[in-house]
């Protein structure tokens, strides 16, 4: 049986990057915070670029606990949404051009979010990755970890639960 030839590398990269840009670039708060995402295949790393407006304790100085929480939450939501749409845009069922035009799928809703602050956030860039520990049809559990200089010394960790969007057939 003849197999379909795989897409050329630049087509694959372009499609994935366009889907990621559509997901991230459409959210004003993510731009406000200066959060970006690095992609290796389907693996995402959130990058929080340091800025003075992220400071919560000017004396230490340290990043605001709310910034740390928000960074972990953004990483968790984007990673979950990314995993949720991955199959559909890889197969072509989800049109990446429509995504880029702002026709985004509905986003998961946060039910609850718990952050552990392990160390104070230093005034420099931070990184975060999320792991989906359960991806159900209605509910999902996600864990996220953030670090700065040394990945083995995280400065914060989070556990979150999300309500998954109901699959919509119309584009409302």
């Amino acid at each position: 049986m003849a197999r379909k030839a795989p897409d050329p590398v630049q087509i694959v990269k372009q499609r994935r990057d366009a889907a990621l840009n559509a997901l991230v670039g459409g959210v004003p708060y993510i731009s406000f915070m200066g959060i970006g995402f690095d992609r290796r295949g389907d693996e995402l790393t959130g990058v929080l670029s340091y800025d003075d407006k992220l400071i919560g304790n000017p004396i230490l100085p340290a990043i605001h606990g709310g910034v740390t929480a928000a960074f972990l939450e953004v990483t968790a939501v984007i990673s979950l949404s990314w995993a949720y749409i991955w199959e559909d845009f890889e197969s072509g069922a989800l049109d990446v051009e429509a995504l880029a035009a702002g026709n985004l799928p509905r986003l998961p809703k946060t039910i609850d979010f718990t952050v552990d602050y392990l160390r104070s956030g230093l005034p420099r860039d931070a990184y975060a990755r999320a792991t989906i520990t359960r991806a159900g049809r209605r509910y999902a559990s996600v864990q996220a970890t953030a670090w700065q200089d040394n990945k083995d010394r995280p400065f914060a960790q989070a556990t979150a639960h999300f309500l998954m969007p109901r699959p919509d057939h119309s584009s409302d």
Partner: protein
Amino acid sequence: MTLDKAKIARQFIQTIPHSSALGMQVTALGDGMAEISMPYDERFIGDPKTGVIHGGAVSALMDTCGGAAVMSHPDAPAGTATIDLRIDYMRAATPGQAITARAEVYHITRSVAFVRATAFDDDTAHPVATATGAFTVEGR
């Protein structure tokens, strides 16, 4: 808390770079209780389809308000840091409306302050989110 201490604490909180970047205003403060308001701002939108504010901004508000409540407590001599914070999101905040968080220290020891917080928009009968957290008590 004396008026002077309240005034200093209020100014201190409003000069925190991130809190001022989010436009937070202290509306009440004292004796382990704090109320802080955050205006609606299109830059804080988390869902562009609905215009609802991102949960992260609500987390930042809850964290600031919890920390402010601890710092205003008579038994907390100096600064504080968050140990952990759990936020439950009850409903989406109504676009266009400010979000106000109210936090109280319901128990404090020599080293830990336990805090509860609730956030509302204009509909004060139905909370947008609630939070519980543990904060350090520093400076003794």
